[in-house]
């Protein structure tokens, strides 16, 4: 299996903004190692000179007029989704 260190997992969790428990870190170390081991088979494929495919729409640039459109969704209904709000703004806990 592909080894991935505990420090690597902790770093990945930070990059991913996930506050994992110790048990979760341990389980991820095994699972991510196994998954990377599996996907490593792609290194066997010769892709010399092959262009990557990032999308399959067969469309080129899609343009629209530069006009503001709220798609029929108003500010208040979006604000109502916030965990907390005050005076028309999203309220967050004091973190500084």
């Amino acid at each position, binding site marked *: 299996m592909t080894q991935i260190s505990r420090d690597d997992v902790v770093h990945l969790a930070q990059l991913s903004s996930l506050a994992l428990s110790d048990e979760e870190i341990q389980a991820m170390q095994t699972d991510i190692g196994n998954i990377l081991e599996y996907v490593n088979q*792609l290194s066997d494929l010769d892709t010399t000179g092959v262009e990557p495919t990032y999308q399959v*729409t067969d469309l080129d640039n899609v343009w629209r007029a530069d006009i503001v459109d709220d798609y029929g*969704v108003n500010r208040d209904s979006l604000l109502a989704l916030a965990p907390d709000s005050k005076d028309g703004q999203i309220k967050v806990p004091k973190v500084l």
Partner: protein
Amino acid sequence: MSRIADFIGKNARQNVLDALQRAADNDQYHAILNLTKERALERADLVDKGEITGRLAGVPFVVKDNFLAFGAPTTAASKMLEHFDAPLQATAVEKLEAEGAICIGKANLDAFAHGGSTENSAFGPTKNAIDINRVAGGSSGGSAVVTALDIVPFALGSDTGGSIREPASFNGVVGIKPTYGTVSRYGVVAMASSTDVIGCFTTNVADSELVLDILAGLDRKDMTTLVDFFVPEKTTKPNQKIGLIKEFMSHDVDEDVRARTNEYAEKLRAAGHTVEEVSIPIVLHTLAMYYIIVPAELSSNLARYDGVRYGHRAEGVTSLAELYGKSRDEGFVTENKRRIMIGSYVLSSGFFDAYYLQAQKARTLLINELNTLFETFDVLMGPTVPTPAFKLGENTADPIKMYLADIMTVPASLAGIPAISVPAGLSESGLPIGVQLMAARRNDAQLLSLARSMETT
């Protein structure tokens, strides 16, 4: 099983009440997370008064709960969105409602559509419609089961790597993933933007054609949509050339699955088509491509769930990193976290070229190979899944084992081509088995026409 036509021209309120009763009677399958009873009955009364009309007037349906839809929260089967009341509806839902269809509830799924069994739902798994000790498949497990149990004649799903086709196979219903870009994804919780596709479950192919005809078309709110090209094709092209994918018929594949697939191929031959074996070695590498590209894309798409603007927010945090980290740790299930972290890994500097870039190049090789084959073949076929539905809990301890259920469905997803799973009979022990048919991009209408013609042969 019921068809859409059975609900047309009937009393809409009765249609809805009956569907709600069937949903309640089948509660033990846990296919539906929330019913939208109040709104459904209001709409039914408007249909009965003639104020809402259309091709699906009074026909009840269910949406996978990653479609924004009114009447109940849109949860994506996650704690993150458990209390999320959609401020708008998905274009797909709006289009069905514009034709008079009535949404009666929201179907269970793997949280954020990450999974192949619906066991990753934060609210508990959906049970298979035929054997309650087995998985529904996933991620659109609830949608497949409500269709198979005849609660509603059709249901909406999303398919990123097989999430419509695999549960369709496991529950013995029709599941269609059209060409990438056929149906607008506006208002559907994003997973992997380069392969996310909207489709449906029905009990027969003609109903899929009807629903897809309504759903297809350009939407300026989803810039990847194509100008409507889908027109159901009455006449099936005769003497089609069909390739049976050799790599999907190896001895690793369940014996009954291979037998039903071979019988389907024989039926195609009897109908005047040619079926010959074709080898596509690269398909065996597609799952590895998929589990690099899709985690990469979803790690980016799920970055928006930060506990600030909407969704779950953790209590008692003292720093910004803790606000993000704890909200996300509490709001996501293990599989979400695993995939996000794989995505972060393959996109990080130092690994980008070896993983992400190599996978996207390999994807080009796959597409080139399929394009070449479609110059000769009208359709490629094989089983939809290597096995019938597995037991609940059988694969949950080993993510790779779970991922392998997708091995036959991911090629069509990465290539953006249309693919349909159709019922092809049962295993020795009575479990449904599906056959998958695939065609070149935009050949959806002919593909469905062929599948429909085989239902009556």
